[in-house]
């Protein structure tokens, strides 16, 4: 065990896997010579050489399709999206080729491909660089969607994703790259499709992923001082989703709040609400609430950007609402 940053954990995962398996290659913009736009692939060109760490031109559709084609015939490529905002340019290859190849070919051509990179908002990156698009990928059968929130999760989940024989959309967060945590050394693998209860409690279930986990945990800590025990669950894999863990938690607490960065309409949270209401209906004491990003393109101005994403107070308000309680006010004795 050692303390590492989230980005170091990703770097470690990729290196370990590439040392283990020669069919794994990494390609993307600036991954090699530049050491990675966010330094996630730092040092990898030096270790593995230009045949295995490939700098691509700005050609998302092209190199993603290249990754799919290579995966069909024996390689296990890792395609880096500099940010997932750019993945939109590659959507045809992700959805029409990667996700569907196995099915359309009647099982003949699996696509063991990882498409990874940071998603969601950063700081004042404005409308076209701040999007949380995981709901789009979750929508497509044939894709897996993984979003780690901690350094340890990042390592364990990336290693597993690389070994998975399916196209995995692995969405990191630029804001989380510098966060530190204990990361197990060596062969540390976290299975996909298993949620992680990051904090146990019995009064309310708070479900969040990626960057929003820290918001959820902050809110939970504050609420604890008011006597509310919040259970915080990180699904980690959004598709396939560990519904069972979420349902069991809500059966225990009778109420749920979902926190996500993405836009509200048809977001990931909406799907979770459906699962909970249909499988835990008789256990619900209040409607399930979502705290989501505002239904707007991300504005540039700092204050507006702050308003556009969930913060601790939003989460606490939602928790109080599902508990039918008046929040403790600042001037209460």
């Amino acid at each position, binding site marked *: 065990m050692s303390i590492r940053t989230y980005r170091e954990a990703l770097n470690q995962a990729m290196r370990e896997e590439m040392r283990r398996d020669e069919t794994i290659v990494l390609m993307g913009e600036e991954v090699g010579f530049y050491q990675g736009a966010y330094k996630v692939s730092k040092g990898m060109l030096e270790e593995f050489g230009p045949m295995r760490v490939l700098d691509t031109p700005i050609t998302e559709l092209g190199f993603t399709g290249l990754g799919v084609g290579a995966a069909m015939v024996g390689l296990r490529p890792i395609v880096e999206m500099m940010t997932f905002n750019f993945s939109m340019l590659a959507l045809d290859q992700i959805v029409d080729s990667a996700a569907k190849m196995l099915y359309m070919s009647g099982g003949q051509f699996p696509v063991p491909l990882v498409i990874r990179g940071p998603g969601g908002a950063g700081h004042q990156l404005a409308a076209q660089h701040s999007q949380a698009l995981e709901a789009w990928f979750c929508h497509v059968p044939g894709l897996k969607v993984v979003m780690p929130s901690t350094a340890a999760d990042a390592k364990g989940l990336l290693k597993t994703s690389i070994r998975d024989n399916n196209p995995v959309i692995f969405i990191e967060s630029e804001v989380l790259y510098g966060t530190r945590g204990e990361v197990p050394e060596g062969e540390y693998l976290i299975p996909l499709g298993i949620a992680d209860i990051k904090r146990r409690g*019995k009064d309310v279930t708070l479900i969040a992923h990626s960057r929003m986990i820290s918001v959820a945990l902050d809110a939970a800590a504050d609420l604890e001082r008011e006597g509310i025990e919040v259970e915080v669950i990180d699904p980690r894999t959004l598709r396939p989703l560990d519904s069972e863990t979420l349902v069991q938690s809500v059966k225990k607490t*009778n109420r749920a709040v979902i926190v996500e960065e993405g836009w509200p309409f048809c977001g990931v949270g909406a799907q979770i609400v459906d699962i909970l209401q249909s499988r835990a*209906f*008789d256990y619900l*004491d209040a409607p399930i609430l979502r705290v989501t990003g505002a239904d707007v393109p991300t504005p540039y101005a700092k204050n507006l950007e702050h308003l556009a994403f969930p913060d601790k107070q939003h989460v606490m308000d939602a928790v109080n609402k599902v508990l*039918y*309680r008046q929040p403790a006010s600042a001037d209460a004795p």
Partner: protein
Amino acid sequence: MAVKILMPKGSDTMTEGKVLKWLKKEGDQISTGEAVVEIETDKVNMEVEAMGSGMLRKILVQAGKVVPVGELLALIAKPDEDISSLVKSEGSAGAQPPAGSTVPAPAPAAAAPLRPPTNASPVGTDVAPVPHAGPAHAALKGGATPSAQEPANGGRILASPLARRMAQEMGLDLNRIAGSGPAGRIVRQDVERAALLAVGGRAARVPEAGSAGAHPPAPPPALPRRPALVPTGPEFYDEPLSSMRKVIATRLVQSKAPVPHFYLTIEVDMGRAKELRESAKALNPDLGLSYNDIILKACAAALELHPQVNASFQGEAIRYYRRIHLGVAVAVEDGGLITPVIRNCEGKSLQDISREAKDLIARARSRKLNPDEYTGATFSISNLGMMGIEEFSAVINPPEGAILAVGAVAEKPVVVKGQVEVGLRCRMTLSCDHRVVDGATGAKFLQTLKQILENPVYLAF
């Protein structure tokens, strides 16, 4: 467009209502919101308001008639509007509901809103158990933030799925639970609160049907709302038995297991006993005659007349005691129970018994009794009335044949000669060892006891 006045559905269970009094007559001009007629539901009297304006053209159901919910009572329309078709199709004024119909007519959407009559007894806040009547919620005492301005939602009870399930599992009626959630939604804490009150006693129950002027009970007072507490630490702790508890446990198991208990309950009018107490107090304030004293003496008297109850099962024989030694169950300070004995009650006066009881009880509480003072009872009395217990059944102290459990002396509505009055009643339960005392014997004993208590003059003899 004619405005219909229909018999409203005043509660979930209402199937028919009575027209009490028309507040307007045919030809009167009515404006929206005006009260037109007073009706009687299965619970309250209330006024029905017009949903629109116009002239009261036709009254179809006269005062005094009972009609099904949803029945057309009257029509409001323009003076020259043709309402003949409406009158014909709905004109079953005063028709009785078909015999045996059990399904209540659904509340018609156009039903006038309910409002309690202004001149009735305090009903205002007591309409609470009809949770779908929106305005009533504003008057909910202890309701946190129900959205009082929500319109009536067509007769549906709003409750969270969890609350519904809990209510069903606990056998609670959602109609009788006030909701503290938005729009009066019943949520878990409301059901929990209701459950506590249901267990807490009959005081929360609606009075018997038929009592005129009865109104639904006041909503329960607000309990402080706090998040559910989770006890921390181990699930339990063991406290070693005190020697007293060991004895109690052993003896009562000895009693309960082999002894075939059965129980007879009787309710005694304590009015005269009360008078006796008051007279005695007037004569001698220092005496401090309690109900228990009176009951002890009455038991002694009754046992003289029914010696079969003053008996004990001895395996091969039934022992009938010639003396009456009464055991009085006393709760001891640190927990536990002891039964000091008043000996030879057959010869003692009420005053004697009272004095002796006081002394023994005080010494029992402070554990200052001699062994011969708590052994040898032939019959025991246990009284939990001072703790508010209405009635209970006690375990016989072996080797006795019976024990009398006395509940609280309380004021109750009682029916005397067809009228309801306030009476003072006490419920007593005799536990009998069936090997010694059979049902008829026990019943006769209780009848005698009751007679004595209701006519304390017997105690003079």
